[in-house]
């Protein structure tokens, strides 16, 4: 059942092209049935999970590799599963309307459903490797969705950036997970969580932790990898709402939360999380405030929320984990809603630039109301769930075991900024003087409003009655992250305390900032433009450019098209390696004992030497060919002299035929000329002499070594008796080792075919026809 639940998205994706033909424009509603059903299914698990029980469902996949399709449902994964399927339901409905009539709607749904399934698999996987499989699948589907408008070069570029960062992080994560497997000896999250191994004392811990952190940070857009997320807004709005705010970007945070109770215990873990989390929070808040495109504003505020989540895991107290879960849920609700609303605005007005909107309250009242509520949650104002979450956040930061004041300052600062951002999102477009927009605005259709409405409503209900979600799942989620049972006891009103005062301060300062925004905006824009030249995104581009430059440099140097250089390298490597090995493993030994040769044998050797040298130095091409013929005669004489008549005959015949072939072919070729410079000739000569010297040394060494007698005595003894032949060489060729000869005649045949086609089949002839 669980397996089906996870994979159903993939299966449905396969059916989309057919369904699209049947369902037509209602496709969104039809497809949304699946996530709706899944939501119901996961909801049905709530009683079990909130009872403190974890579900473990096991399926085999590749047991040899330790890969299994095991799923684990605990509080954390259930919260995520509910968010994914729940928000997914509305996104699918919304997209049907938002992309109505789009030529690629079916393709959109294919990828979207695949993404949803991957995301479910990611949060539900118990197996580390399967988890990673789904993790990478979300990166790829995300890539496909960011680049959905693929004929737009900018969209392709942004998609690549997102993929490159997340997949790069993914690879590091893979190493981290493998190390984790080494440390724990287990492939299963549940086993790792259940064991009381002191992971942080293991030698691999640091490496594993760093790898996991990098993986999670890239996925969850933590500083300095945050830059890809705003660019991912090139995707259609439903994608931004779903992947890049509510679900996928939280995968990294999910992983951190998942592993927190096991990985914690070392300063590296918590300090990294706190530091990068806080930095991300602040950076996100500032950038959200200083942007103008409504989707960018929302994207940066997502960055801020992701930073907050990371920071809270890092703080790691019970309160902080409670705050973490609440921020997670609150953010998913309001940000999903706000993105869909932003899409509605864009859809209706034809622009994404908030400076070009104003006074839309009149033409889009329903949109305005929902946006207003969602913005309240964003700003962390009562009575919405965002308020509850923010208060908890302030409180846990205040009580942080370390860095409490620094974190608090960052939290308040970003809180102030986010209030202003909420103003930008809500007040700026809907109030103030009306402006002319590219399209005549009117309220968004029902399908586009139902999702935001429901999500905002949930935020409101959860705000007013926070004990509801808490008892159902949040407690369980907190427990799974914290590692032991926790009762959250959430409430909207805690009386006047420091967090409330801080909220008040934030509201006040944020409002002032919002008012000042108009004036500040040009300055901020200038600052950001200047900053982008040195920021991490600039680093990304420099990295990509660097790779291209190194690549083309390497290609210029190594793959330069000059055969001589290729061969030079080959020769140097061959003889450098073997020479070095000979020197170190055996030793050089020169031997000048020629006493066992006869003078005429030296005569033959001299002939070979002379022919070779002359063939190499002569400027006469045909002289060279004739000299090669002499070389052949010399070699044949060696064969004959040392008891190989068959070889002698063959060598002579082949030599004659080689000369004939050369003469036939040289007919068309130009005479020798010295093409290379003297320097090149000396260089080549040096290398060639080196190669020859090493070969000689190897031979001299090998001549002294005969570990075993040759197997030839068998052939000599049995040639006549068993194989009925007296010419043992021939018997070997046609009987003992006939397969060699069989191969050899096919080599001949191949050469014939090759020559025939080269001579007869000409490119020119083909182009004519």
């Amino acid at each position, binding site marked *: 059942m669980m397996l089906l639940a996870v994979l159903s998205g993939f299966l449905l994706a396969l059916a989309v092209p057919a369904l699209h033909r049947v369902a037509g424009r209602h496709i969104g509603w039809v497809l949304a049935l699946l996530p709706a059903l899944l939501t119901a299914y996961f909801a049905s698990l709530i009683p079990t999970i909130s009872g403190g029980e974890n579900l473990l469902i096991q399926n085999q996949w590749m047991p040899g590799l330790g890969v299994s399709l095991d799923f684990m449902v605990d509080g954390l994964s259930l919260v995520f599963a509910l968010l994914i399927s729940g928000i997914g339901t509305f996104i699918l409905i919304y997209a049907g309307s938002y992309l109505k009539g789009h030529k690629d709607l079916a393709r959109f749904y294919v990828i979207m459903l695949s993404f949803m399934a991957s995301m479910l698999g990611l949060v539900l996987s118990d197996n580390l490797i399967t988890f990673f499989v789904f993790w990478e699948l979300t990166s790829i589907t995300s890539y496909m969705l960011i680049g959905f408008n693929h004929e737009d070069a900018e969209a392709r570029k942004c998609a690549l950036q997102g993929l490159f960062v997340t997949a790069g992080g993914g690879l590091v994560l893979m190493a981290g997970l493998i190390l984790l497997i080494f440390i724990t000896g287990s492939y299963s999250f549940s086993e790792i969580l259940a064991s009381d191994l002191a992971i942080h004392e293991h030698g691999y811990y640091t490496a594993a932790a760093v790898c996991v952190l990098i993986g999670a940070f890239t996925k969850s857009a933590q500083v300095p990898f945050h830059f890809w997320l705003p660019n991912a807004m090139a995707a259609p709005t439903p994608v931004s709402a779903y992947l890049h705010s509510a679900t996928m970007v939280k995968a990294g945070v999910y992983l951190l939360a998942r592993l927190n109770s096991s990985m914690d215990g070392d300063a590296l873990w918590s300090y990294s999380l706190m530091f990068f989390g806080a930095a991300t929070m602040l950076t996100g808040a500032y950038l959200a405030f200083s942007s103008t495109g409504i989707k960018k504003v929302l994207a940066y505020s997502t960055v801020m929320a992701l930073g907050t989540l990371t920071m809270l895991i890092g703080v790691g107290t019970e309160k902080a984990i409670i705050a973490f879960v609440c921020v997670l849920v609150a953010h998913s609700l309001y940000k999903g809603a706000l993105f869909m609303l932003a899409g509605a605005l864009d859809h209706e007005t034809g622009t994404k630039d908030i400076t070009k909107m104003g006074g839309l309250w009149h033409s889009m009242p329903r949109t305005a109301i929902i946006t207003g509520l969602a913005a309240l949650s964003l700003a962390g104002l009562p009575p919405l769930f965002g308020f509850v979450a923010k208060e908890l956040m302030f409180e846990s930061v205040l009580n942080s075991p370390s860095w409490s004041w620094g974190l608090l300052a960052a939290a308040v600062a970003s809180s102030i900024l986010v209030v202003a951002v909420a103003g930008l999102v809500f007040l700026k477009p809907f109030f103030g003087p009306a402006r002319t927009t590219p399209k005549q605005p009117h309220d968004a259709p029902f399908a586009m409003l139902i999702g935001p409405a429901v999500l905002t409503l949930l935020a409101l209900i959860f705000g007013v009655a926070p004990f509801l979600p808490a008892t159902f799942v949040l407690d369980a989620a907190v427990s799974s992250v914290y590692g032991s049972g926790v009762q959250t006891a959430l409430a909207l009103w805690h009386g006047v305390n420091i967090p409330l005062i801080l909220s008040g301060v934030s509201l006040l300062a944020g409002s002032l900032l919002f008012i000042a925004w108009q004036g500040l905006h040009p300055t901020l824009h200038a600052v950001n433009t200047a900053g982008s030249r040195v920021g991490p995104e600039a680093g990304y581009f420099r990295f990509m450019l660097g790779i291209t430059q190194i690549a083309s440099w390497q290609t210029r140097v190594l793959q330069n098209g000059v055969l001589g250089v290729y061969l030079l390298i080959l020769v140097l490597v061959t003889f450098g390696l073997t020479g070095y090995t000979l020197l170190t493993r055996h030793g050089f030994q020169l031997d000048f004992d020629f006493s066992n040769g006869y003078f005429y044998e030296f005569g033959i050797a001299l002939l070979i030497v002379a022919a070779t040298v002359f063939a190499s130095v002569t400027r006469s091409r045909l002289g060279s060919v004739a000299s090669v013929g002499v070389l052949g005669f010399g070699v044949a004489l060696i064969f004959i002299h040392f008891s190989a*008549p*068959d070889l002698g*005959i*063959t060598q002579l*015949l*082949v030599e*004659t*035929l080689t000369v*004939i*072939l050369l003469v*036939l*072919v040289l*007919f*068309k070729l130009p005479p020798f000329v010295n093409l290379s410079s003297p320097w090149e000739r000396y260089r080549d000569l040096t290398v060639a002499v080196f190669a020859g010297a090493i070969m000689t040394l190897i031979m001299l060494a090998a001549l002294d070594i005969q570990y075993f007698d040759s197997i030839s005595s068998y052939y000599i003894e049995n040639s006549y008796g068993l*194989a*009925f*032949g*007296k*010419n043992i060489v*021939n*018997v070997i*060729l*046609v*009987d003992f080792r*006939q*397969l060699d*000869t*069989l191969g050899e*005649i*096919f080599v*001949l*045949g191949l*050469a*014939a*075919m090759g*020559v*025939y086609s080269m*001579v*007869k089949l000409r490119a020119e002839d083909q182009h004519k026809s």
Partner: protein
Amino acid sequence: MKTNTLILHTAALAIMPLQLMFSIFLLLRGHDEPGGGFIGGLVAASAFVLYAFAFGAESTRKLLRISPRDILAAGLLFGLASTIPALWSGQAMLTAQWWEVPLPGEGYLKLSTVLIFDIGVYLAVLGTLMTFVISLMESEE
């Protein structure tokens, strides 16, 4: 310059049969003395090369009657065919099979897959070299 001479033409006709005969001699005797299919094939090829040099590629084609490519194919198929009897009798590929064919009078003619194989080599070498030479010469013309 003036090409082709009467002397070369006539000599080619006289020498060529000697070469061909000697090539067959080398082929058949190769199992016991220097020679064999490869050397025999090369000598046979020399014979046709001589003819080609004297009379040109076109005439050599006519003399051969079948195309060098077909000689090559025949050689390869002969080589492969020599593997079949062993497979047929359930032995490992390339296991030599010997048959003694009784001749009228006394004596036996020894036939073997080894001989078939050597003939295959002979033909393959001949076919290959003739392909080289004839196609190259034709490309000059």
